[in-house]
């Protein structure tokens, strides 16, 4: 069992410079409750992407060329705030997006990204705002390369931006390694912890 590796992502970057895009906006609960994972991409950003009659809102960035095929999203602060629903990441990944660049992320969403081979990149707010407006102004130059090996983003206009990722998470994404496999190998440590803890806090393990 492994996640999809992520080493270099090249593709169109789409600007979505809206603060506090929450998980309900990313995927509605009704969709995730009713639909299989493979169908969620169609409903990602549903209230932004579609009008009340179900037709696409041509003003929404991911409905416009060249952003329709984006692999990288340049987003606003606190992106993915709200619920723990991992389906929010599944929905975005279902659109083909593998990298999300934002000044900050909702914490649970951030963690869920790494579980699903999606790289969340934190850059300073002014930098993200500048990139987003340039993408908006020059869609023809919306191509970007995100290199996790080098921890660099290269823009079409020749800018190189360094970013930081926690080393364990970076290694796991590069290798496509699965967190659970690593922990299963630590079973003796878990058993030893519980043996000690049962002595120390017996009430945790049973009533009596």
């Amino acid at each position, binding site marked *: 069992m492994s996640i999809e590796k992520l080493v270099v992502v090249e593709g169109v970057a789409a600007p979505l410079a809206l603060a506090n895009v929450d998980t309900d906006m990313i995927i509605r609960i009704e969709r995730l409750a009713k639909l299989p994972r493979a169908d969620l991409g169609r409903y990602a950003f549903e209230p932004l992407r579609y009008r009340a009659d179900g037709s696409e809102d041509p003003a929404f960035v991911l409905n416009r060329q060249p952003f329709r095929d984006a692999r990288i999203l340049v987003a606003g602060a606190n992106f993915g705030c709200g619920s723990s629903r991992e389906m929010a990441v599944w929905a975005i990944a279902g659109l083909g997006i593998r990298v999300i660049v934002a000044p900050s992320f909702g914490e*649970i969403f951030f963690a869920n990204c790494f579980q699903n081979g999606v790289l969340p990149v934190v850059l300073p707010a002014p930098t993200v705002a500048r990139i987003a407006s340039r993408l908006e102004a020059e869609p023809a130059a919306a191509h970007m390369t995100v290199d996790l090996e080098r921890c660099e983003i290269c823009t079409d206009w020749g800018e190189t931006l360094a970013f930081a990722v926690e080393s364990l998470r970076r290694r796991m994404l590069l290798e496509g390694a699965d967190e659970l496999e690593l922990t299963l190998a630590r079973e003796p440590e878990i058993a030893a912890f519980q043996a000690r803890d049962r002595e120390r806090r017996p009430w945790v393990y049973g009533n009596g």
Partner: protein
Amino acid sequence: MTGRTLFDKLWDDHVVADLGDGVALLHVDRHLLHDLGSSSAFHDLERRGLVLRNPELHFATADHVVSSATGRTGGVADWADRHIAGLREGCRRWGVRLADVTDATQGIVHVVAPELGISQPGMLVVCGDSHASTNGALGALAWGIGTSELVHVMATQTVLARRPQRMRITFDGRLSRGVEPKDLALALIGRIGAAGGRGYAVEYAGEAVRAMSMDGRMTLCNLTIELGGRIGLVGPDDATFGYLEGRPFAPRGAHWERALDAWRALPTDADAVFDHEVAFDAGAVTPQITWGTSPAHTIGLGERIPDPAACADPSERQAMTAALDYMGLAPGRPVAGTRIDRVFIGSCTNSRLSDLERAAAVVRGRRVAPGVVAWVVPGSQLVKRAAEARGLDRAFREAGFEWREPGCSLCVGANGDMVAPGERCVSTSNRNFVGRQGPGARTHLASPAVAAACALAGEIIGALPETAA
């Protein structure tokens, strides 16, 4: 050695392996399961040929997709029943305790876990729901996790976590009459923002917290995720211990005495240092109502809707403009007097007995305004029965409220309960996000007393009536 915070003690007590860089493998004392997501986690566990390691440390209930209609036995449709069946099947197969749809202990997972004594001080508690932070009110280290992490917890009874920084929010003074923990939390989020707590484990302290009931502390910790923090905490004290004693899953006999000794050592040491401290005057807080689509979009009942033009940050300004457009409101106008269609009293934020008592005190002997559909959805069967024993159900029903069956209901709209497009709902829940209560639904977050008073007025009120406690 300098002192440690409550958070530090909780974290240190659960380290199975230190992986460096602030990453640790932590032992999970309680995993709380619900009906949305558990089915898929059980499925993944099985697909990978893994075993649920410690079934005695897992507790399940059905809340997200269950119908809230009187006489319900499951969901409102096949897809909902499939989630419930998956939960039931997984629990049966692995021997996990389940408070099923028609059981006497069923309810919203974050209401049930404290009231049954399942979550306790000193424990590490996780749940596939972001409002797991609620359990921090007991002095437990609790946070919400995603589906992949659920499988990890099931198979290994551990979670891989990054040590957050520590923030203490000290509420000086006491809440004024009619001002509730919900108002305090909204006012706080309004001041420091929906991301103000991001990266932090937030401990709530100060006079207002000490004076607060356990229900109120749960409301406060519940809303920590709307402040951007995954973890909310209140140091356990006699109120905590008094609350827990005698609850079905609380320690008993010699275990109770040993647990008490351990719990009394948990509160933050006097010389402990936090990474960030916030002082907040609880006495100055007034009853709140949200006007926009983030819990940070909050104002006092008598105040005017803010103007995005006055906001310096362009992305925030854009979000405010979009919020006003979605909410159908104009900047600069008083929020009071805005007509409403629905009122929802419920959710893991505000559906406990004392919440319902405050709302009932407002509606008793009065009538819901014509055209307003008002619901009360108690947080659990235990809350419901206790409320009925006090005649609260009668007060609500006679006023024209519907008295429904426990679950998440209109807070999240996962069970078919929804607010129609364009309709306006005053809700005691936790999120006023776009589409949260249904596509196009307009949500105003408020306390139970404010929501109840709005139901009677048929509009957003400008001040609480005298009947509010």
